[in-house]
């Protein structure tokens, strides 16, 4: 499975890469903000995107709104510190499929990925 990691923090991308590699996912691409992700997503054609919210240049909410105009189906999990209910609802309405609040454990990230991919395959 090809997974794109979109986060302005290299540290967080590395943590996510480490978790995903342990889960057996090795086809990974990285983007440092929404703009960077938009420029790479078509060529990489991910099966899943992990998306941060607060990023410079283009935040995650703007990315998902733009991305969903062209791609309605690729699953996207928002991975963010934004934990308020209103934010979660806003992200889901914008087209996010699932949500992980930072800080997270490897088990939570793994569980959300499995849930999301199972739902997408159903």
């Amino acid at each position: 499975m090809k997974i794109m990691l979109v986060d302005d923090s290299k540290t967080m991308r590395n943590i996510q890469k480490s978790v995903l590699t342990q889960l057996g996912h090795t086809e990974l691409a990285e983007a440092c903000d929404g703009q960077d992700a938009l420029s790479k997503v078509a060529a990489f054609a991910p099966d899943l995107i992990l998306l941060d919210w607060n990023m410079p240049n283009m935040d995650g909410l703007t990315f998902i709104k733009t991305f969903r105009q062209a791609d309605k189906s690729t699953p996207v999990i928002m991975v963010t510190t934004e934990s308020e209910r209103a934010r979660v609802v806003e992200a889901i309405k914008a087209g996010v499929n699932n949500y992980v609040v930072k800080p997270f454990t490897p088990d939570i990230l793994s569980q959300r990925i499995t849930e999301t991919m199972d739902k997408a395959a159903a």
Partner: protein
Amino acid sequence: MDAAYITPFMQSIQNVFATMLQLQVQVGEPKVKSGHQATFDVSGIIGMSGDVVGSVVLSFPTDSAERIVALFTGESISTDNADFADAVGELVNMVAGGAKGRFEGRKVSISCPNVVIGSDHTVTSQKAVPCIVIPCDTDCGEMCIEICIQDRKTQNAQAAEASATA
């Protein structure tokens, strides 16, 4: 400053460090900070806007920061490496984000973090807003959170009430 804005930071820093670093944080008694001199040499700074405005600083002595960053990233990183600042920035991002999620009935946005490294630097915050320092201790060394925020929603409501009764 209302304790309702202090407790969330205590809970958040303990949650972030326990979850991401498996590191317990002992939180000390909050106190009012005097002056703009940074408490320690490494400052991760994040701004808040919306119903609550101001800044939050996660401040570390260099040796504590080096140990904590090594635990967080899984590798030893020198302070002049950009990855060091990135890691400190992500920590303050999670602490501030976790705290604001615990503010009752307030809609708050946080900025992207900035990190300043160097002895004797200053972090100037808003005038007339008291800055609260929460000392913290861990097995990797000490650190603190400096909170300099004000509740704009309450202030605006009080101003509107005063204007109405004038």
